[in-house]
């Protein structure tokens, strides 16, 4: 915690990024979409509240970015600092290290999500403020499969170094495929298939349903069930692959290589 707070710039950017992304999308719709943009938006998304719709997508995307990047890059960060081997010398299992190294940042980012979305709702849709609680629960469940994706990246990063190429590319793909700024139903069929296996798709959709369409978790049980299944599958798969790559790294002596 102390170590993270000594690099405070990260937290400030997390606070403003969702608003900046939303403004970008809002501006594009307003200035490029023309006079009917708002009407078209309502027809296609089922809501007239563009700001809340987009801020939810942006905030989930940002949180997802942080989790995948933090877990994925945590080891590389330690490797660059020179402290990775020191951590690996301790009698602590790798799972605890991977989660522990990124947890502080993730807790803070999730807290920032709560503030960003809460503030937006308080200003634009105060009647839905209470629905923030079930929506936040969905986000917390949605973090679990993201850890799995992070583990997978942690493995790739040990093997191929250069973490940011992988992670930034995939995070941008996530924004395209998970309905961050538009409904996934407008994507081509094959892309919808990919969306269907990405946890963020369900998190974003369920949160919008809860906040903008007054749905309850019970009404959304089918989608919640899929999210829970992904929350189980991704960590098992991601950690399994990470362990294989990590074992190989012990053979090749990758840990001390930059």
């Amino acid at each position, binding site marked *: 915690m102390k*170590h993270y707070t000594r690099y405070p710039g990260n937290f400030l950017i997390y606070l403003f990024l969702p608003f900046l992304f939303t403004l970008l999308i809002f501006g594009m719709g307003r200035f490029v979409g023309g006079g009917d943009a708002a009407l078209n938006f309502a027809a296609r998304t089922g809501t007239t509240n563009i700001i809340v719709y987009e801020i939810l997508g942006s905030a989930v995307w940002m949180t997802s970015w942080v989790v995948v990047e933090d877990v994925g890059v945590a080891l590389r960060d330690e490797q660059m600092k020179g402290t990775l*081997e020191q951590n*690996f*010398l301790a*009698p602590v299992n790798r799972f605890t290290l991977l989660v522990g190294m990124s947890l502080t940042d993730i807790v803070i980012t999730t807290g920032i999500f709560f503030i960003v979305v809460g503030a937006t709702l308080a200003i634009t849709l105060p009647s839905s403020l209470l629905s923030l609680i079930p929506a936040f629960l969905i986000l917390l469940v949605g973090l679990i499969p993201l850890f799995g994706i992070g583990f997978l990246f942690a493995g790739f990063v040990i093997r191929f170094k250069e973490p940011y190429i992988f992670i930034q590319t995939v995070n941008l793909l996530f924004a395209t495929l998970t309905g961050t700024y538009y409904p996934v139903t407008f994507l081509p069929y094959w892309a919808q298939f990919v969306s269907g296996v990405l946890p963020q798709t369900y998190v974003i959709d369920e949160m919008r349903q809860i906040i903008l369409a007054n749905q309850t978790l019970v009404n959304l049980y089918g989608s919640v069930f899929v999210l829970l299944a992904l929350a189980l599958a991704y960590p098992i798969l991601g950690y399994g692959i990470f362990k294989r790559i990590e074992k190989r790294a*012990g*053979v090749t*002596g990758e840990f*001390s290589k930059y």
Partner: protein
Amino acid sequence: MKPVEVQLLSKAFETKEGPLLRKTPRTLVAVDKISFSVSKGEIFGLLGPNGAGKTTTIKMLCTLITPSSGDAFVNGFSVMSDQQKVRENLGVMLTGERTLYWKLTGRENLEYFAALYHMEPAYSRKRIEELLGLVGLKERESTFVENYSTGMRIRLSFAKALLNEAPVLLFDEPTSSLDPQSSRLIRDIIRELKEKGHAIILTTHNMEEADLLSDRVAIVDHGKIVTLGPPAELKEKVKSNDIIEIEAKNLSDRVTEALESFSEVSKVAVSSADSAEEKGLLRVHAEKGKEVLPRILEFLVRKQTVITKVSFIEPTLEDVFIAETGRSLRD
């Protein structure tokens, strides 16, 4: 079983070399079937030049690198199958100052690692207090490590290795980059740890340090142990020859090779004495050194070598290394 048992431990790295698309696979044997053991209360030195395989051996012992074959046991636990238990029984100091968190203070670094070793908070506070005093960092405990000098960082790294009071301690070049005063402090602490019964493995390319501290030394070259024993015994073996040390300028490989053809000379090794002045240090192992010395000097003068100093010296571990490998440790 002794605290450390190393049995035919080997490590080969598969690498690819050459330009992109034309890389050829190559196997680099870093450690080649080495075996040794370390008893309780013993300091065991691994001495050898850079690249000899000392650090790879240490990294295999502390589970950072998986051996290609063989096995090693730390307090009875195998590095191949009981890695977590091995780590619990080890205190390790790896080379370099970037083994700490620079944005944390000295105390915070120790607190972090104490937590990783599952140390009780009350006990770890007491232990950290003790260690900061031991390595002379008590007054700077609240300073960020980024503001420490290199020597202070190395002392803190050394203290980190002692946190969990492990029965087996591995120190990889513990005094490299330290000033003489700090080096002496670290050596004194290592001796105290030996008295307390810790089994200690020390890697160094500093022969004086290996000689001063080690109960037994294994001289390592190209991944193999070329000789092993107490320093005094090893030096005794090379005493049958006189050892002449000649400091000179304009030493060439051809000159040193020619010296080896002298019938009385058994080994010649050259190392750099003063790189700024381009001086070389020639070590000649010779029978009846006093008789052959005038001929050696005459030969060197004839080859336009500028001799600045000549002395007969007592054998050191460097001479053991030269006798075994034909090269200087400082090559």
